[in-house]
């Protein structure tokens, strides 16, 4: 038998011996602590529920109290203004996706790092095999733990405070875009810009400095020039991005052909409507 196992067994035998001779019975000693703590847990949960309910204004139950809304608006796959917010314990993953951008390195954030974390967590007892248990004598383990806590905390905080733009705020920008990009005379493109501002595109994309680059989605300020798919091409792409190998962006097929055409016109106009360019879609559509 190898020496380490022998030592371990002796240690545990000594532990069992000590507990048997010097220990205290679970009931009532440890059970007292457990019961007090369990009651505290139930009280905290009830108090959270009460605060959640009673900090919400009575006259407007759909508005937000101290702990957030009682309920959001009903899910509507066809529209508008969604805020893809996970529960708080996924914020750190949520923020990883802003660090690792689609498409080159998104797999680091979505698959590699979470898998690595889980594997490390499960493998910990096989990595740290020393018998020493006192924290001050385990400098490597303690340093690693503190680093993990700090980085998880920082990512959670960053994920929590990452601001999603509101549709109403984006809508104000549309005339400015139209002027700057030179599609002000093209009503179809302007309508497309309004759709763009409202349906949630800007939760992931930036446009002329507005919006957030969530999930590493690209800036679309001059997408008409860089991508140049044409009105119908853009409409197709937005309708079902997975057909083009983009599995991260949601489908927007539900917007309908007319809205998609407007959106496509807007995208094709972005960056192409300077006086010299010939790719700018003509006013009124195609």
């Amino acid at each position, binding site marked *: 038998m190898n020496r380490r196992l022998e030592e371990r067994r002796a*240690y545990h035998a000594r532990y069992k011996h000590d507990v048997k001779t010097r220990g205290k019975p679970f009931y009532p000693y440890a059970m007292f602590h457990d019961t007090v703590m*369990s009651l505290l847990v139930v009280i905290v949960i009830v108090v959270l529920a009460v605060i959640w309910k009673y900090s919400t204004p009575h006259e407007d139950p759909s508005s937000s109290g101290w702990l957030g809304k009682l*309920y959001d608006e009903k*899910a509507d796959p066809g529209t508008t203004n*969604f805020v893809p917010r996970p529960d708080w*314990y996924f914020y750190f993953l949520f923020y990883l996706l802003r660090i690792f951008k689609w498409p080159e390195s998104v797999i680091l954030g979505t698959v590699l790092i979470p898998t690595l974390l889980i594997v490390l967590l*499960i493998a910990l007892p096989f990595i740290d095999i020393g018998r020493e248990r006192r924290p001050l004598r385990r400098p490597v383990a303690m340093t690693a733990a503190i680093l993990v806590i700090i980085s998880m905390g920082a990512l959670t905080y960053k994920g929590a405070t990452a601001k999603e733009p509101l549709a109403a705020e984006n809508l104000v920008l549309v005339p400015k875009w139209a002027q700057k990009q030179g599609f002000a005379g093209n009503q179809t493109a302007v309508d497309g810009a309004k759709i763009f501002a409202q349906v949630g595109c800007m939760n992931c994309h930036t446009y002329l400095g507005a919006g957030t680059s969530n*999930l590493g989605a690209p800036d679309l300020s001059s997408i008409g020039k860089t991508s140049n798919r044409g009105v119908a091409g853009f409409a197709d792409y937005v309708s079902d991005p*997975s057909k083009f190998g983009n599995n*991260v962006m949601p489908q927007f097929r539900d917007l309908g052909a007319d809205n998609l055409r407007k959106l496509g016109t807007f995208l094709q106009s972005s960056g192409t409507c300077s006086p010299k360019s010939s790719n700018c879609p003509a006013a009124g559509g195609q």
Partner: protein
Amino acid sequence: MAKKKPSRLDQLVKLVLYPLNWLEERTSIPGHSGLVGGIKYFLFRKVPSDISWGHTLGSAALTAFIVQAVTGVILAMYYKPDPNSAYESIRHITDDLWAGWLVRGMHRWGASVFIILLFLHMGRVFLYGAYKYPRELNWIIGALILVLGMMEGFFGYLLPWDQTAYWATVVGVNLQATGPFVGPFLGPVLQGGHDIGPDTLARFYSLHMLVIPGALAGLIGLHLWLVVRIGVSSPPWSPTEAGRPQPGPPPAPRKGLVAPAPRGARRR
């Protein structure tokens, strides 16, 4: 010799003991205690004398899990897992039912409390070095409980069928599709089709209230069984730490193991 009439107390004790003995008789095998003996062992087993509040985080997490189970069962009696009525049933629970807001609020916030307690419990175990021999397996089971607990959160998030729920799930499912090999298949399997719709909701509901809680309950049972069997560890800095070498002859190793007699001085 006249037979003495049994006192009231004796009769009462007999009355209480009879069903317990009956149960014990029918759950035990020769040489091993049954259900009642097991509960007795659980309650009156010795634990290290120096454990205190740090060791309550596990049972606190268990309490939060029980709160989730109870409130979840009540919610399931009123919730309708169908896109046409899910949202309305949630509003009905919150606005109309007596104490419905309380049950839903407890379920919603209890989820966060559960996850926080799992993290704290894990931190305590890490600090005490309590994942080391012979408790490695219980650390692994605990890690699986944490992962499953977070999955509970993910699948439960869609159920209110509001905008946040829907779009967070859209992003979540799309992200899983970026995985290699299985990624592209995972999305349709989870969604039960190419879009998030009625099948997705039913699927998430089933996972959220049957599959994962069942797995969690099983793992928690195993976790507790191992805790009782192996014993909880003393704080490593305690002067009366159980297992620390004491002057005098070392105790004999466990019986039944192929272990030679201990030899030589032991190092800490």
